[in-house]
């Protein structure tokens, strides 16, 4: 069974603080994704990665950085958190365009509140 694990599951941060959301996958998928989910917007793509060392901008990358140090791990970094970044963040892995199934597998989500 595909496994994507996010940490922390809940985080309260202060405005201007640094936040790192971590994601680990045991699927050996090349691609990993970070989305945020807000009421009325569905899931919006922030950053994604094709493999270790690769990061790509998604549709709403401003205010976020990403890091992919290994096949298994993909982090989302908020250097200077703002209240507008209060949201639920989802990580996913998949091998779209490759020879595998191509499905996205999601973690359980990380709820971030920036005060």
């Amino acid at each position, binding site marked *: 069974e595909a496994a994507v694990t996010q940490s922390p599951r809940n985080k309260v941060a202060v405005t201007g603080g640094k936040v790192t959301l971590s994601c680990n996958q045991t699927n050996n998928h090349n691609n990993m994704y970070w989305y945020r989910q807000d009421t009325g917007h*569905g899931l919006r793509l922030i950053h994604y990665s094709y493999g270790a060392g690769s990061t790509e901008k998604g549709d709403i990358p401003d205010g976020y950085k990403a890091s992919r140090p290994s096949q298994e791990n993909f982090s989302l970094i908020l250097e200077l958190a703002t209240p507008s970044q209060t949201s*639920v963040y989802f990580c996913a892995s*998949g091998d779209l*365009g490759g020879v595998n199934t191509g499905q996205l*597998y999601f973690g359980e*989500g990380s709820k971030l509140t920036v005060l």
Partner: protein
Amino acid sequence: GDKVKQSPSALSLQEGTNSALRCNFSIAATTVQWFLQNPRGSLINLFYLVPGTKENGRLKSAFDSKESYSTLHIRDAQLEDSGTYFCAAENTNKVVFGTGTRLQVLP
């Protein structure tokens, strides 16, 4: 968002009835996925589709890449089908989500 439009945005069904959800794409989608987000917030894979159809129990989905749409049919709706259904389209290794259809199945 605008690239993937889902309809209806919300729907109430009596238990045991049938319904269809739809996604229209303004991007060139190569594959489509359907997810159910349950009340706990977990995203559950329902279907992954290349152009064509798939069926799984009471659920059936179709994807027409030429006409740029996908449908999800629910037959004999059950209470546990309640939640928010998302479709997502793949385009050049990015997956773009619609804003969801909130489904409530009533006893």
